[in-house]
């Protein structure tokens, strides 16, 4: 009888252990927490405020990833170390957003001057999938499915929370559409630090001119900058949006020569601080910044 009680007690403890999820994506961390609730413990490997382009997992991170049941990653070349990680963390199941989103080519406008200068291999596809709410809805359902596969007992809970999240994302998508509709079509041009808003541009009819990526170093070639300035002027861009500006001199030169003003800072490489600490908040903050600058 004692053995039976011990089995029930320790069995119960084992059942109460939440699913361990390691996340390489701040956006997927937020989604997994909303869907998983108490049944899931999400360990942030890449945190908000850390530049994901420069991030490399430490030995401590590798231990956390190896002991996780699931690993969340963006894919499409965003984590240049992902293939190496998969060969090391053989016990974990990888949930890669790139497997379910409809990818677009990086530099959606064929901006041939764009070269990668920020330390990771974007590859031919744009890995910044979360700037499309539709993509995020797909990834949310994908995460819910993978959580259910890893923890079948929690399947109903995961499905229920995923459905609620999907409804909130649907509402967020509507809000984004209505806000962007306030910007005249002729002004829908995003001059950004780097080419990270391709999905947002696709969904809402923006053109994109990325500032960063004009050369292979922090000092872009003068011809490249001149070409970009000419494009900004000919297309009538009124604002330039910043993020983590690596070369403010270039930006100053462009704003001075084009007359375009600083449109404000966008959170483009994942989640940020304050309102942008959640996916919903990040999207609303970015859309508000864009609408205020361009309308």
């Amino acid at each position: 009888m004692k053995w039976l009680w011990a089995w029930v007690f320790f069995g119960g403890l084992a059942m109460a252990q939440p699913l361990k999820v390691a996340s390489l994506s701040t956006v997927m961390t937020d989604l997994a927490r909303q869907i998983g609730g108490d049944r899931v413990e999400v360990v942030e490997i890449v945190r908000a405020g850390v530049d994901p382009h420069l991030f490399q997992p430490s030995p401590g991170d590798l231990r956390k990833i190896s002991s996780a049941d699931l690993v969340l990653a963006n894919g499409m070349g965003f984590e240049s170390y992902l293939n190496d990680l998969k060969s090391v963390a053989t016990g974990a199941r990888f949930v890669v957003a790139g497997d379910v989103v409809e990818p677009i080519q990086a530099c959606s406008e064929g901006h041939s001057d764009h070269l990668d200068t920020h330390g990771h291999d974007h590859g031919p596809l744009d890995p910044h999938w979360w700037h499309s709410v539709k993509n995020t809805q797909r990834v949310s359902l994908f995460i819910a499915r993978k959580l259910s596969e890893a923890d079948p007992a929690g399947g109903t809970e995961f499905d229920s929370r995923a459905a609620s999240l999907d409804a909130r994302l649907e509402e967020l998508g509507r809000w984004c559409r209505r806000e962007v509709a306030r910007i005249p079509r002729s002004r829908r041009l995003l001059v950004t630090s780097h080419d990270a808003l391709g999905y947002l541009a696709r969904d809402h009819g923006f053109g994109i001119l990325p500032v960063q990526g004009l050369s292979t170093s922090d000092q872009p070639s003068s011809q490249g900058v001149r070409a970009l300035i000419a494009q900004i002027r000919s297309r009538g861009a009124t604002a330039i949006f910043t993020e983590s500006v690596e070369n403010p001199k270039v930006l100053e030169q462009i704003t001075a020569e084009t007359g375009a003003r600083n449109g404000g800072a966008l959170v483009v490489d994942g989640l940020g601080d304050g309102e942008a600490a959640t996916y919903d908040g990040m999207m609303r903050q970015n859309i508000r910044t864009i609408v205020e600058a361009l309308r």
Partner: protein
Amino acid sequence: MRGSPLIRLVVVCFGLAALAWPVAALTTRRIQPFPAGQPNTPEPVTADFVVRVTASTPALFSVGIAGEDSPRQGTGHTFLTSFRMNASAPEDLQVGADFPDSKAESAVRVEVLREGRRLVDSSFWGNGSIQDAVSIPTP
């Protein structure tokens, strides 16, 4: 070099001027003031876009576009209005429908016609209030 020193001086001056001209052109280029929001494009061709909004129950409709200060409004089952816009890049429509007398789920149908041809036929559902935006496909 043979010849008059004066001619030599003139030749050298011409040579220096020929070299200096492209340098000066590059370094002393004047910054042109930028006309904000006015790209150098010809006047766009415009067209009338007729918008018809139909609701399942009586509603307070609003339809607005970028550039107009306030949305156009109407009440009833159907609301009809038209916008004159750039034919090749028409603005998105901000569509709203409030149902003050209905708490059940209601539906709104938005149609956009140009010269009798239907360009958009979208439906939305919601409780109490429906707010969305409609993009008009470009040719």
